[in-house]
Each structure stands twice: as structure tokens, then as C-alpha cells.
């Protein structure tokens, strides 16, 4: 630890917003993932873009690593430092700067959480589309830039195109914007509201999943959608995954359902368990639940969940014609559409609550205190192969198959899909930790060897992913990193950098 950088940091943000206190540093040392813990040297709580610029400039001068942390709720080790240095905590930058109802978007700072944004948008009849199982206290920006697929990803237009412009501080300390608000004339920025990700300058793709290695995202225009004015949630039970694939495909080719996804019995039981609360932090305490265990036994192995939603105009009529069309598709396949399962009362309300507040899915953490997902993208027809391979592996490792959580999300009407397999683990049991860690690593390896696109290249899985990238691809990314971050101060050791 060198004093000059500490003094510089204090001079930039004030002594009260720089910490070297061990207890504070410890919070950033690890999360629930298997990523190697590492203690940072300093935590800086930034409150403005100029402060971030100054911190990064100072870090460049002293070659000190900087790891941006927006909310500390990335559960997969992406924000754990690799080489100490400065944690740039952005949680105090939590302003929702603007909301427009006509074009339906909000301009947010990086510390704005999904919970905060949901509440603000709700006042105007709007909502932000969110991924299943994202913490309420997670930064909206960090989740969106991670491209965690939203629960509505089955719908082309309401799925994964969630943001427009972004503002970032580059690794050299320069502030840069993309999209309409990228003009700064005589010190005045232009107003936001166009371009960016899928507009005239699609540069933001470069910063997706970059985990702060190419700069710090300091602002974003996040799209919002109307909260449904009428809803019906239907379920279809399946004994195994293979049986569900064709129905999913047929329903999606008819573009039915705003949200459409599958949960296995463990994940659905966790959502339905009334005696479990959503943990506030991860890992959490184990909470035994008879209700959860009973539900897990009674629920079908897989459940397809379809949400029909009516928006502003004649919402009930929209839901009515979609229901009729959905019933017709199901009848053709000999399937019986229902709004309940295993005689459970209130299922539709529970599922609608899950759709609008998808952090409900995190109740699953109560099972063993931590969960370790293998997340991948593949095509629908191949998912049963991946399930079998991972289950075979789990069996080999002696991991109980009925303790595996699964979630399958068709993307853009079933063009491809996102598949998540959770291994639950009691982190207080060192033997179990070793077993599950080994299983989790091997499961990642098996899936990538079978041709999956693994979603989260952090910690131990980063190397296995980047080894499989084309050399020209990795070489270009490394060259880009070198040009943008010549001192390699931004989250060094992450990804392939």
C-alpha cells in the first residue's frame, strides 16, 4: 500500500469517502461464487463523473488497479479484485435523472437499483424488463450491460434490447458518450433519447460483459415498458425436458405470450414456498422448509409458464384472443392448458408476482445458503443433451439430482435459448464446498466442450472460455484493451486481460 495514492483519493472525494478499514474492505473480498477471494486496498465511494475521472487518472499515474462496483450484487465473482487496488463503489450515484413516458425510457446512474427503478417507473405505469433471479438491490446498469437475458426475452421486441445510449469514463479518465446524447457543445450535452445499442452507432456492444475492463459505465438510457393492464398466466406441466421443447417452439412461432419460460420443480417450489423470504445478501443462512420439500415432491418435473398480457388499449380483449389462440395450439398438441398445478391455490398470483418482481426467484438461496449456476446459450433442440450430460456428471460426483435447479428461457421466439443449472451448496461445510466446486467446474467444461456458449467468463471459467475463442478474436480484443487501457488498470486479470 502506498500513501500517495491514498492521499490523492482523499483529495479527490474527501476522507470520509475513502476507506481502508478492514471490515469495509472485507465486503468486497468475495461473494457467493467460487471465484478466488482477494482483498482490495481501498474503497472509494464516488458521487460524480468528474470524481470517477480523477480517481482513474490518479490510478493511472500510480498504476493502481481499479475495480468498479455498482451495487455489489453480482453473485458470480465479476467484481472481486484480482490484484487488490481500488474498489470504485458507485452505489452513491443513484439518481434517476429523467423518465419519459412518451418514449418510455429512463436515464439512470450506475447506483440505481432494479428495486428503485421499478418503484419509480411504477408511479407512471411503466416497468423495466428484468432477468429472473436478479437481486432487487442489483444495479440496473450492471445487470443490463451484462446482458442477463430478461424474463421477456422470448418476445423479440420486449426481450434483450433493453438500453439505448451509454455514458462511460474510459480507462484514461476521458468521458465519452454514445448515441444521441454524445454531443457536447460549449460545455452542454445534448439531450438523450436515441441510438446507442441498436442505433446509428452500435459501439456499446464493445462494453457488454466487459466487467469494467474497458471503462466505467456512468450513465445509461434504459428502456421501459407499460405494466400490463390485464394478465393471465397459464402453465403446462411436463415429465421431462425433451417433451417440452416442441410445445415451446410451436407456441413461440405463434408469438404467443409476453413472457414464456420453464422452471423445474426445485425452482418453482422455491418461488411458491410461503415460509421463505428473499435473502438480503448472498451467501445467506440456510432455512429449512417443509413446504418447499413437499412442493418439490408434488410439482411436475418441469413447468412451462406463459404470461398473456394486455397493454393500454382494450387489454382484456387482447388477453382473450391470445388465450383462445394458445388453447388452440395446445389442443392441437394434445396438451391441457391450466392456471394451477398440483391443486396449489393462488399459483397464478404467485407467478405474476414473480414476472413483475423476478427477484422472488432468489428464495431458492434459502435451500442451502448459496447456489452456483452453470449458465449457457444453445439451441432449443440441444438443451436435453446438456441436461443429460450435466446430470450424468452430477450423479458421478454423488450430487443428489433432486437438488439441481433448472431454468430454461427461449430467446426471441425460440431462435435459441438460455439455460441455467444451479448446484446448491452449504458454504459452511468445507467438504461440500470442495465437491460442488469440482462439479461446477467440470459441468462448465462439459458444456463448453459440447458446444455451449457459456455466459459468464469469470473466475475459473474465464480461461476455459477464452481458450476456445478464435485467436483473431482474442487478439483484437486484447489490442483494443491495450489501446484503451495502456496501463491495464481497469479490473486487471478479468476476462482474457
Amino acid at each position: 500500500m502506498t500513501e500517495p495514492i491514498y492521499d490523492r483519493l482523499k483529495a479527490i472525494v474527501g476522507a470520509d469517502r475513502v476507506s481502508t478499514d478492514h471490515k469495509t474492505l472485507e465486503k468486497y473480498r468475495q461473494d457467493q461464487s467460487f471465484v478466488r477471494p482477494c482483498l482490495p486496498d481501498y474503497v472509494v465511494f464516488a458521487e460524480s463523473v468528474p470524481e470517477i475521472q480523477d480517481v482513474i487518472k490518479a490510478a493511472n499515474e500510480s498504476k493502481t488497479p481499479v475495480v468498479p462496483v455498482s451495487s455489489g450484487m453480482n453473485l458470480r465473482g465479476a467484481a472481486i479484485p484480482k490484484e487488490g487496488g481500488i474498489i470504485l463503489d458507485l452505489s452513491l450515484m443513484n439518481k434517476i435523472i429523467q423518465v419519459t413516458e412518451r418514449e418510455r425510457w429512463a436515464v439512470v446512474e450506475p447506483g440505481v437499483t432494479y428495486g428503485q427503478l421499478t418503484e419509480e417507473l411504477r408511479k407512471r405505469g411503466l416497468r423495466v424488463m428484468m432477468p429472473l433471479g436478479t437481486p432487487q438491490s442489483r444495479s440496473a446498469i450492471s445487470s443490463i450491460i451484462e446482458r442477463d437475458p430478461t424474463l421477456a426475452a422470448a418476445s423479440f421486441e420486449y426481450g434483450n434490447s433493453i438500453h439505448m445510449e451509454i455514458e462511460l469514463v474510459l480507462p484514461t479518465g476521458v468521458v465519452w458518450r454514445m448515441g444521441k446524447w454524445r454531443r457536447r457543445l460549449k460545455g452542454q450535452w445534448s439531450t438523450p433519447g436515441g441510438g446507442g445499442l441498436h442505433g446509428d452507432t452500435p459501439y456499446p456492444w464493445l462494453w457488454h460483459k466487459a466487467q469494467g475492463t474497458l471503462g466505467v459505465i456512468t450513465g445509461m438510457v434504459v428502456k421501459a415498458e407499460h405494466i400490463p393492464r390485464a394478465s393471465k398466466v397459464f402453465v403446462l406441466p411436463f415429465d421431462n425436458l425433451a417433451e417440452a421443447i416442441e410445445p415451446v417452439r410451436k407456441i413461440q412461432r405463434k408469438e404467443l405470450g409476453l413472457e414464456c419460460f420453464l422452471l423445474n420443480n426445485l425452482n418453482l417450489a422455491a418461488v411458491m414456498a410461503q415460509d421463505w423470504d428473499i435473502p438480503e445478501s448472498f451467501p445467506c443462512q440456510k432455512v429449512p422448509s417443509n413446504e418447499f420439500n413437499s412442493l418439490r415432491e408434488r410439482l411436475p418435473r418441469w413447468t412451462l409458464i406463459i404470461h398473456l398480457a394486455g397493454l393500454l388499449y382494450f387489454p382484456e380483449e387482447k388477453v382473450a384472443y391470445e388465450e383462445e389462440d394458445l388453447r388452440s395450439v395446445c389442443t392441437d398438441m394434445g396438451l391441457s392448458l391450466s392456471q394451477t398445478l398440483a391443486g396449489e391455490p393462488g399459483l397464478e398470483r404467485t407467478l405474476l408476482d414473480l414476472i413483475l418482481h423476478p427477484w422472488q426467484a432468489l428464495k431458492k438461496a434459502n435451500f442451502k445458503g448459496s447456489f452456483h449456476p452453470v449458465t449457457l446459450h444453445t439451441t432449443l433442440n440441444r438443451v436435453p443433451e446438456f441436461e443429460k450430460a450435466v446430470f450424468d456428471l452430477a450423479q458421478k460426483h454423488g450430487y443428489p439430482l433432486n437438488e439441481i435447479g433448472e431454468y430454461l428461457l427461449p430467446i426471441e421466439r425460440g431462435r435459441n435459448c438460455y439455460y441455467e443449472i444451479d448446484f446448491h451448496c452449504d458454504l459452511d461445510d468445507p467438504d461440500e464446498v470442495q465437491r460442488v466446486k469440482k462439479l461446477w467446474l467440470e459441468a462448465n467444461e462439459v458444456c463448453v466442450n459440447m458446444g455451449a456458449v457459456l455466459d459468464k467468463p469469470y473466475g475459473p471459467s474465464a480461461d476455459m472460455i477464452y481458450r476456445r475463442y478464435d485467436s483473431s478474436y482474442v487478439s483484437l480484443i486484447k489490442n483494443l484493451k491495450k489501446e484503451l487501457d495502456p496501463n491495464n488498470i481497469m479490473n486487471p486479470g478479468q476476462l482474457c486481460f
Partner: protein
Amino acid sequence: MATEKAKVTPQKLSREAYHALESVVGKEWVTEDRVVIETYVVHCIDIGVALGVAGKSSRIRPAAVVLPATTEEVQGIVRVANRYGFPIVPFSNAQLGSGPTVSGTVVVSMRRMNKIQVHEENMSVTIEPLIDYGLIHHEASKRGLWLGGSGWHGAIAKPCSQVSTAGIWQSDLKFSGLTRNLIGAKLVLADGSLLRLGSAAIAGTGGTPFTETLPGPNLWGMFRQAIGARGIVTELTLKLHPWVGGHPFPEDSGRPSIEHFFEEAKEKKFDRPPVHPRHKILWFEHPTVESITEASARLASSGIGIALNITGNYNAMMCSYTIDEANQRSKEYFGITGYMVLAGVSSEKQLAYEEKVLKHVVEETGGKLLSAEYKPELLDAVAPWNVEYVLNTETGMRTVRSNYIPYALPPYGTFDEMTDGIEIWKDVEKDVGFLGEERGEYFSRMPMDCPYGYILDRGHQITIEMDQFPERASRAELGKFFDGNFYGFARFMVSGYPGSWFADFGEPFLSIFPEIGPDSYLMARIFRKITNPNGVLVPGRTAWTDEEFKAAVKNPSKTMETMLHWREHFGFPKLELAEEEDRWKPME
């Protein structure tokens, strides 16, 4: 010194370089025949080429044309270019960015790369550069799929080319244009190596990319809209979507052509093809730009429809058979109109529901649907602008805009762009003037009444189009056109937009307007440095090197001088050279 009768002589390749190209593609697929070379110039509507033709420039005449058949041959050509030090420009669509930037350029024509494969189960299509929108629709619709749109460019436009430049579709309400529909690509980089984008970049995922989502930073961000200057696209995989409109083309037809497929075409009624099953286009008229804009905003967020656009008086051009008719109609004015295309993907009931919503919103915002009862003559006049035209442009680019060059497309913005555009257009008339009025053409004035409004992305954003139409052969008109174009760029900046669409084409716009980004030219230079350091791929097109900037400042082009003039006109801060003299910075 050039005289009026000076001969325009293209620069020749060295014999060694020429023979090396022959050895890559075979003797019959490389030529420096003047007739062939001129064909590539005459049929190219690249703006730089248009000016070059008018100015009798030899710079825009390629040294040779080479026609590879495979990605491997493109790689070979690029290696030869590196070895012998000549620049190359990829050519497939003959549109923006297809022309040489310096003398001695070799055109790499992609005409022989024409494979297409539809992946029905995963709803995608993989195409080579010659495959156009029409052929994709032809192949995809047989399998109950389609691409999701098509622009104003006509069915022969090619997505592999568009991915380097534009890609706005009339159906962007739902499908959000080309960028949103990209999955993967193969690109040949400036050193001849191959880059794959999309999931195919990861070994073991299969040869065909199935998702654009990748772990870590996604290089699509650097290669989309690179105008051929960061890599040559040799293969593209695009998303397809469910299509319930049937297969309108006979199996044995080959390339779709209106004359083949519609009985009506034989009676010269080619612009009224049969409506696709489960599709409908509905037109509406509003009393003011403000009210039609409000209607569009509400319709866009209602969740209905697959296409929604405000057409204004662009109807006059798009629906007329002759220039005289278009002139007459644009003078008389068609009114403030727009259309929406509905599709009943799940059933006919969806169509009925969506039509009910559309009628409700139009009425509540003070508009009226065109119908047999209300202005049937106007509905009849706009009939050529039909579902087929909006979704597939199979019936060709039904326009009399023979001199079409986009004038001013501001970057995407809010619905305010409609009224902002009108104000800007009024200033263009006042300060620069419109083209064509002396010929009795009124097209250029139309956006003053109502710009063309593309409603994108379920109304999260829109973009507008406003055009002028110079005579391509008139150097004076092209000069005035550019003057106005650059005026528009600066005027948009004053109104809170980052220039216009041209900003993303790079230089000289980005260096002259460091307010964009700010300093976006620096990012462009980084991209240039890591993708095209030696300038083998169309040098200077999207980004200058430090040295190229210094040279440009030393000998400023007409474009540069004009843009600096408009900076001064609009009171932008003066520019001063940075200490290293490698860039300008505003004196704030």
C-alpha cells in the same frame, strides 16, 4: 494541369501484383479492361464517386476489378494487396462506400459469392455478399419465415453491404432494423486473417452462429457500419422471424421479379400485388404534424402492428408513375398521412383486435382512417405503397427519385425530431436553398410540411428522413447539394443532435466536430490502428491516422473548408490544433 479534354487515366497495378491476383482467383476473374472498370464507376451511387465522375477524376477509377468466389480467395487478395501495397475496396451493392478513395485501388467485386442457407429450426439465414433482400425472402417464406423487413432500397439491396453502412427498415417498429437482427459474420481483416463474429467465434459451437451473445466484449460494436474499412464481410448470419404471409413466388422462378409473379403486372398494374394472407395496411390522416406524431407515439407503445411510419408528402414520389405526376402531386400535397402494417401471426383474431386499437387511437388523436368513405381518391393514390412494398420491396423501388442521395438523416431521437426537422428544413431553404425547383421539382420542399418519420423500436426512438435530389452529372448541383448537406450537419448540431448520419462515416466529419462524443475521432483512430494500420482497406474512409490528419489540414479539401465555414456561421467555438498537431480541439 487538367484541361477540359484531358484524358482520365486510371493508375495501373504493377504486373507482378496483377499476376498475383490472377493466381489467387484465376485469370478470368481479374481484369483491368477499361470498359469493365468504367462499369463499376458508372453503376456506383457512392457520393464520392458521383463527385469524381462529375469532376472527371481518375482517383475514382479502379486500377483493376477482381472477383473472388470464396472467403479464402478474399483472404488471398488481401494478402496480395499487403504484399504489393495497393488499397482495395469491397463492392457488392454499388451504394455508399463502394467507391475507391485513392488512385490505384482494386475493387473486390463480390458478385460470385452468392450462397444462401436458411436454418429453419433456429430461424436464421446465412448469406454471402451477393444475396439480396429479395432472395432471402424468396427462400425464407417457403419455410414460414422472413427477415423482418426491408428498406427503401429495393429488393436487390444486399445485407452484407448494408451491414457496413445503413439498415433502416420500414418495419423497424417491431424489428428494429439490421443491427438488431445480426447474429454472426465472417470478415476478412486487413492482414488477410479471418474473424468470425457471433457464437461461431467459439470453437465447438458449430459452424453456423446461433446467437450474437458472447461472453465478454462483443466485436460487433467495432465492425458494424465500418464501411468496409475495418474488414470485408464475406458471410453474414441474420435472424428470421415467423411469417404467415404465405410463399408468394413460384418455386422455379429464381430471383423474384414482379413481372413473373403477378398477373396484374402484365397489365401494368404491377404496383398492386395481392395482399399477403393475414396482413393489412391501414392509412390515416391527421390535421397537423403534432397530432400525427402523438398518434404515432401512442400506436407505437400499444404493442400492435409490425410497421408504423409517417409518410407526409413522400407519397407524391413513392406512388407516382412519372416525374410530372410526382411534381404535380407534391405541389398539391397529399396531406399529413401515415400507415401501419398489421400482421395476424397467431390468428385472424389478432388482426381484428389490432385494427380496433388502431382506429381508436387515430380517432382519439383527431385523425381519420382513409377508407371508401373518407378520401377514397387519396387511398387509391397511395395504393402502390402497399404491404409488399413496406415489407419486402419486391415490387422494386417505386420512386421517381432517379437522383436519390440521402440528404440529411439525423441520428435516432425522440418524437420531437419531427418538428425539429421542419424548423431545420426551413433554415436550409433560407440559407442554402433547395435543389430542383428550377426544373419544376418540389420534392426537396416536402419535409418543410412533414418529414418522413420512421417509428422505430416500439416508439422508444424514431428517425426522420429529409432529402434533396441533385442531378448526378451536374457538378454545380452536387456542389450545392454538399453545401446544404454540411449546413444541415452543423444545424442539427446546434439543435442538440450529434450531427447527422454522416458523422458515423467518420472523416472529415468527426475531426472537424470534436464536439461529437466528444472526440469520437480518437476512438475511430484506435479502431483504425488495430484493424487497418496500413490503410489497405479503403484508406481514410472512416478514420484518419495522425499523419493523415496532418496532411488533410495542410491541404484542406473543399469538404473540409465548407464544414469549417458552417462551424463559423453557426458560432461554434474556433478550432485550434493540439500541441502535437494531430487533432483539433475547440477553444472553449
